């Protein structure tokens, strides 16, 4: 059953990624095809996760493949909040190829096996909230990258700047900050859950925890500077991307270090 849902979901994400490429060259019909690919793919992946959850004995997303599967789903879900709006369509150019690659990697890594483990409710909650926070940071990074790309176009005074339908700079800046702030709250909660779980079940402070704490510090700095010193625009985007670079490190370290 999981196989039956995986391939169409991957196909839909792939179609969306290709269609977003076409949309960037010639806005119009390709954008509509892309957004339908995202919707259909996400629904299929939702069904896939539900099937997996129902069949597994335990929590099937604590393996790195399973975590990637859930992570990809959360990233696309976060994207869908804004991605359906015409001006945000091009954000899909960054998000959907990533989602398709993550889903394929999850498959290769055995993320769809019907077995689960029993990490306990607290740890399962920790993993789920952590992945949700990471998905939010991914979206914030996508928005920040989009901001930098659009800002560069305005700074270079590109004559064709008005031809692409992209969100205004201020909107991108605001949405990236909002996604990041909400995700920071989730990350804080996930870390707290992890600390409680660590204290209860025992364990050592490892590289994944160090990278997670470093990411937390970067994002805490962002939230602080945003509220106190008016961190906006290009600098804010750079901080968001720096935090995301640490997030990118955390997932592999968690399972391979």
């Amino acid at each position, binding site marked *: 059953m999981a196989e039956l849902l995986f391939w169409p979901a991957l196909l839909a994400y792939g179609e969306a990624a290709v269609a977003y490429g076409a949309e960037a060259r010639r806005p119009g019909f390709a954008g509509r095809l892309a957004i339908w690919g995202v919707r259909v793919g996400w629904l299929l992946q939702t069904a896939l996760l539900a099937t997996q959850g129902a069949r597994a004995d335990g929590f099937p997303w604590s393996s790195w493949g399973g975590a990637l599967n859930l992570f990809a789903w959360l990233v696309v879900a976060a994207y869908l909040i804004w991605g359906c709006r015409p001006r945000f369509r091009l954000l899909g150019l960054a998000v959907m190829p990533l989602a398709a690659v993550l889903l394929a990697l999850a498959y290769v890594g055995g993320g769809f096996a019907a077995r689960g483990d029993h990490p306990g409710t607290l740890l399962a909650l920790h993993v789920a909230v952590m992945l949700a926070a990471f998905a939010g940071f991914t979206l914030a990074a996508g928005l920040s990258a989009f901001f930098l790309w659009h800002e560069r176009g305005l*700074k270079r*005074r590109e004559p064709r*700047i*008005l031809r692409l339908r992209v*969100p*205004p700079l*201020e909107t991108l800046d605001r949405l990236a900050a909002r996604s990041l702030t909400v995700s920071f709250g989730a990350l804080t909660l996930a870390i707290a859950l992890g600390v409680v779980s660590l204290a209860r079940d025992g364990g050592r402070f490892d590289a994944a925890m160090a990278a997670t704490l470093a990411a937390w510090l970067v994002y805490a700095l962002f939230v602080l500077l945003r509220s106190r010193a*008016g961190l906006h625009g290009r600098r804010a985007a750079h901080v968001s991307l720096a935090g995301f670079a640490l997030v990118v490190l955390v997932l592999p370290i968690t399972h391979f270090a």
Partner: protein
Amino acid sequence: MRLGLVGISHHRAPVELRERVALDADGAAALARALAVDGAEAVCLSTCNRTELYLAHADPASAKAQAAEALDALSGLESQQLSPALYRLRDEAAALHLFRVAAGLDSMVPGEGEILGQVRAAYERGAPGTLLDRLFRQALHAGKKARTHTAIAESPASVSAAAAALAQQVFGELDGRRILLVGAGKVSDLAARNLLSRGARISFVANRSPDRAAELAERFGAQPLQLDEIRPELERADVVVSSTSAPGFVVGRDDVAAALPARKGRPLFLIDLAVPRDLDPAIHELDGCFLYDIDDLEQVVAESLAGRRREAERAEAIVAAEADRFRAWHASLDVVPAIASLRARAEEIRAGELAKLEGRLGRLSDAERRAVESATAQILNKLLHLPTVRMKQAAVTADGVVYADAVRHLFGLGEEER
């Protein structure tokens, strides 16, 4: 009824000639009414780029001659002077022309929006009948469709519109955004008006002449400033529009840099419409500051117009499809009366035959009588269905009229009246 068009436009006539036949709304309405006599229909479309007379008349040649005479009379010139600039189109060509006009494809700036309103006004004030009513309604539909299904009308076509569109790339909606207007000339006034139309607010007007600054500030409900009072307001403004005749920079890089800490990361968009330039180009290097001068804006407009021309190809296809629909409808006008007469004649025969049988049918119950009526009506419908369909199909080809005449002849339709 045939459709005819006589017109003059910027494609073939210089402004000296066009202005001679230009009419205001009342004049255009009066001319349309004057031409709509003896069952004819007329609509006059007069804008700064064109004056066109659309006519529906049984005799298109004489109608067009009348229209050309009317334009000659308007111009006050000899007919041979105006005639070379006039174009005369009929039927499908005239319809396609109007659809292209409504879509902005015949305009100087492809896709410009004003023409659609002008076509609507001409239609509402003209003297349309069945044919022109359908033609103009469909033209308005085609014009709207071309604009909504393509991006032909999306990009700005003037420097001031480009400046406003670029400001929207930074801020999104401009509602409540504060504009600092430096210089009180016509150019900055035009740009400011464009920003105002998108919801921005002119908060400050700075000018070398205090009187002129006060005059303009009063008009916009803004605060007047001297040129040396600009600096503190750079902390509060979102958009700066500058167009003075000052020989040097009015706002320097250091002025803007000094305002940045107080702005707390809010972007600043600056438009320099002056030559020589008013705003130091180095301002553009500052974080969160975007400075566009007249050359930058003109490049954006040129690219935007090129984009409109590319979109025009897609709009042409939409307009052609609409013109085909109109042609099919127009052609059906030739056969519809014949079909209606044929069906009326058949129904008359059916009713007559049933009346002859009335004596014998009297013995039937109401249910049996209804069954007989229904059966005879069905026989008629089935018999006439295929000829009706075939005639409608033929209507869109050149054979439509031939078919209609053949049916009239074979069934003797209309002979009673002769």
